């Protein structure tokens, strides 16, 4: 348009330059296409597919909720598909849309239309797919067509439908996803048995599904189902489904065998003493690792589906009879309410279920260690393990628990207290040190020892920037190094160390950018933030640090205390699954002997009060018992003599 406006007096060269700079829609001959302005933008939202969904939504909410309560998110998807194909309520809507759509070009083909077109080409196939029902047909070819249609075969080349005859008589087919199943099981344990001649020695006239399950299939876990939706879900999960001619049910066999990482050392939570096992990305493995530690029949693992499109799973684990049912109910409720197409890993689950999304502090605790997870469960917490990330979440959590590490309970109490206080010091440094430095140098110079003051002032003479700018410069470059350090490929990782040392070191001082003391302040701050065991909290502290720098620069120590008070207010108002974030300090509850100061392990008799666990008592009078027994033995001996 601008070109048109400019067309008259513009010389050719300028036109060319403008042409290369200005944005225009690509022509057909330029082989380009663009997604920026789709041809049916705006209509897409009201397309028949979704419009029907919307139209039906109110009517079908009841139905959908039912399906949720059944715990089958897969079914929901199916419902949608059904309503897509179900054109009863659509006609009115379509009328409206048609008027809207007059201005637009031809609609792209929908998937089922495409399939329909394709099918008309395949003449000779009399079988019709079961479009309107989720129930399996008794006709094998109809089932085959439906399955093919559901998995978009042959476009989709991952899914394999293997047709064969059972015992050389009955037609059947297997469907499974390539790569998700264990080929050895298939080749050695399933197909040879099914295809051998003497399968049907005592076969009746009935559908042979039960017979096969009882006598032929040597797989440890087999199920039967008559629903397509369930079958599809399980096949996507790595099971294989066997369809048999004349049967309205199919057999699902546990043949999972996909690639997964082995159990290795926890990378983010290393300890010196204690278990060296870490979670993996596989949910089943993770649950097993926890169950391996808590060998108790009351340990419950509930599997809940999350993610509407990626159909991920998450496990909710707790100890029945210890964990508070209110917490369990709340966790399950919140997880079930997650309505998102893609949910993967604990990080996403955490964001969906946390109480206060706008707070800096984490409200769930995550760990990579099965032993720590087990200890959470034993405390009465509820643990959520999501598929796809090697972490487990535990709720509820308090501020003080974020400072505990699994090593705390593995080393003797003087050592663990020492380490814990060091960590607290780290938190203090990471939060306040740069802010206090700014406040000291700007407002409270009388607090600095004279010689040090003269030294700082002398070093500052050549630095042209105000203190606040100096501090910000150093802090931001430190954050850059840290962030860069995480992203840098490990092959060139060494470079980063050199660069970092230059920026945060002598070079910066020599360049007259910062004063030498500040380098120390920033380094201690960095060290302090590394000492915080919880990564989410560490990030929160990193952000808060800047608030304190600002407060210190504006109002000195007064500003820092104001800011600290403000943060404390917010922390006080927070709750994590019904537990106040700062309990047992605010509000005050019975103090469990492991808050900041950790008492010897034999004196930690109760579970934390704020968890409201059903079984408050954790252990008996350990040492007292054997001491009194010894005394009794002595007495007994004395009596005998």
């Amino acid at each position, binding site marked *: 348009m601008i070109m048109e406006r400019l067309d008259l007096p513009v010389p050719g060269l300028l036109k060319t330059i403008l042409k290369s700079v200005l944005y225009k829609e690509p022509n057909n001959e330029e082989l380009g296409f663009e997604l920026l302005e789709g041809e049916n933008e705006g209509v897409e939202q009201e397309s028949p597919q979704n419009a029907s969904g919307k139209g039906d939504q109110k009517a079908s909410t009841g139905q959908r909720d039912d399906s949720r309560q059944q715990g089958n998110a897969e079914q929901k998807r199916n419902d949608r598909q059904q309503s897509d194909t179900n054109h009863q309520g659509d006609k009115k809507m379509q009328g409206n849309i048609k008027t809207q759509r007059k201005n637009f070009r031809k609609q792209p083909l929908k998937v089922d239309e495409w399939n329909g077109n394709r099918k008309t080409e395949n003449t000779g196939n009399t079988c019709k797919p079961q479009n309107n029902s989720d129930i399996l047909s008794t006709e094998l070819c109809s089932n085959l067509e439906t399955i093919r249609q559901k998995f978009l075969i042959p476009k989709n080349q991952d899914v394999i439908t293997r047709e064969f005859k059972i015992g050389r008589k009955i037609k059947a087919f297997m469907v499974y996803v390539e790569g998700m199943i264990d080929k050895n099981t298939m080749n050695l344990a399933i197909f040879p048995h099914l295809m051998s001649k003497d399968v049907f020695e005592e076969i009746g006239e009935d559908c042979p599904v039960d017979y096969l399950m009882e006598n032929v299939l040597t797989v440890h876990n087999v199920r039967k189902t008559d629903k397509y939706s369930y079958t599809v879900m399980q096949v996507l999960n790595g099971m294989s489904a066997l369809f048999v001619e004349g049967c309205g049910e199919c057999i699902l066999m546990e043949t999972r065998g996909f690639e997964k990482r082995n159990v290795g050392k926890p990378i983010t939570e290393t300890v010196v003493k204690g278990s060296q096992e870490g979670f993996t990305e596989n949910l089943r493995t993770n649950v097993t690792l926890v169950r391996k530690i808590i060998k108790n029949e009351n340990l419950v693992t509930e599997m809940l589906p999350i993610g509407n499109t990626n159909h991920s799973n998450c496990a909710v684990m707790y100890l029945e009879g210890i964990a508070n049912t209110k917490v369990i109910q709340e966790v399950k409720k919140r997880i079930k309410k997650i309505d998102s197409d893609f949910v993967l890993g604990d990080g996403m689950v955490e964001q969906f279920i946390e109480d206060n999304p706008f707070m800096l502090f984490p409200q769930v605790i995550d760990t990579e260690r099965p032993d720590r997870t087990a200890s959470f469960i034993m405390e009465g917490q509820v643990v959520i393990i999501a598929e796809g990330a090697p972490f487990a979440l535990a709720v509820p959590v308090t501020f003080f628990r974020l400072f505990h590490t699994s090593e705390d309970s593995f080393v003797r109490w003087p050592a663990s207290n020492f380490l814990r206080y060091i960590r607290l010091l780290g938190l203090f440094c990471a939060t306040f040190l740069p802010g206090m430095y700014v406040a000291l140098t700007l407002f409270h110079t009388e607090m600095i020892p*004279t*010689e040090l*003051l003269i030294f700082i002032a002398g070093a500052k*003479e*050549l630095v042209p920037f105000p203190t606040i700018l100096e501090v910000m410069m150093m802090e931001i470059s430190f954050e850059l190094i840290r962030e860069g350090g995480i992203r840098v490929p490990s092959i060139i990782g060494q470079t980063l160390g050199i660069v970092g040392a230059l920026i945060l070191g002598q070079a910066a001082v020599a360049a007259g950018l910062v004063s*030498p003391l500040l380098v120390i302040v920033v380094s201690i701050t960095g060290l302090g933030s590394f000492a915080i065991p919880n990564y989410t909290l560490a990030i929160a502290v990193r952000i808060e640090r800047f608030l304190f720098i600002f407060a210190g620069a504006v109002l000195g120590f007064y500003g820092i205390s104001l800011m600290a008070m*403000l943060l404390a207010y917010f922390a006080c108002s927070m709750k994590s699954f019904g537990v106040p974030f700062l309990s047992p300090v605010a509000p005050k509850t019975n103090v469990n002997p492991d808050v900041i100061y950790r008492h010897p392990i034999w004196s930690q008799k109760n579970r934390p009060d704020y968890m409201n666990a059903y079984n408050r008592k954790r252990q008996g009078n350990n040492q007292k018992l054997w001491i009194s027994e010894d005394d009794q033995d002595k007495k007994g001996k004395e009596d005998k003599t």
Partner: protein
Amino acid sequence: MHKSVSIALMCVFIICLLTACYDGREIDEWAYVYTIGVDKGVSNVLRFTFQIPSLKRDGGGGGSSGGTESQSAGHFTIISLDAPTFHSGVDMAETSFSRKLNYMHANYLLISEELAREGVERFINGMIRSRQIRHSMYIIIVRGKASDYIEEFNPVLTGAISKAQDGFMKISNKDDGLTISTNYHNFISDLKTAYRTPVVPLTAINDFSNYEASGAPPEIFKSEGDYYAGELPRSGGNKFEFFGTALFEGDKMVGALNGDETRAMLMVRGEFNRGSIAMTDPKDKKLRITINASQQKKPGIKATFIEGKPVINVKIFLEGNIQNTQSSTEYESVKLKPVLENAFREYVKGILDRTISKCKNLNVDAFGFGEKVVMHFLTIQEWEKYNWLGRFKDTEVTTEVKFIIRRTGTMLKTNPIQHSNGEK
């Protein structure tokens, strides 16, 4: 939640704007005063001298060496000016610097003897009103001019002047007792109390004129404390020394105690820590013996009224080690030890009586006897009416010294030196 967070943050920012108390000043926008000197003014009421360290670097220009080397010793500047008051003097001084004067870190307030004898009231109250003057700042009387003294105040052993300033005061307090230390707070409260009068350390420039390169030692005994500041027979070291105590009556300096008398005063006050006290050998008047004495416990001071006149009984408890004998006499022995103890008792009692009578003559209760006398008064009004400080000269003070030799150093027995002619 989002809303409340943003409201709270907004409040914080607005508070910052509303308070209007943004008085932050960069650390390099100040000039830090180490020492403040006060003299009698010439062209105005008072003459103030400020000692300010220079933050200038050696080599200059911010060269390759970077900003890490510390200040080298003795880099400071001194400014003296006549001004009506301290604070106006500060403002006047600032006009010659690009910085604001910061005297939060000033450690010494040096007052010239001349001014002190005229009275300190003119500035002592006004200065303390400033937030920047620390109550822990030391007050010192300079014999001679404070401005000249500050010129020379550049400790030889260290470049860290403030550390040295602390050090001088600590060592006198803890280790020798030849002078005392008084901070601003104690000084001003002693000025205003009716229990005692202030005592202030004395200092002076030593021009090394008492040091004689050759000659014979005098026959008569001269103790280590029989000097005033600036009189020590020495050469080398710092060009100044802290020795003795200035005595105040009201806001005026009226006299001074030498080192020995300062020790005696400290003993009565119960502040004597430890010191090597030399005296003549009881067996041989030519020889000297040193006892390292310390206070065993707080002195027992009893005040009574006899016929309406206060009578004070002072009991000093000392203990010590034999540090040095110049003869081979075996003072460690059971027989001779009491002899030495007796002699020392007499010696200390002599100094004590001398000091008390000196103070009585000056009518200066430097010992804090008032704190004991006040116990005989039921109300503070009666006590104030009694005017203790005016009556100290009429008080009868008796002294008593208890002394025990605890240790004899690393020698348990002194064996005589063997001579070739068989003499011992």
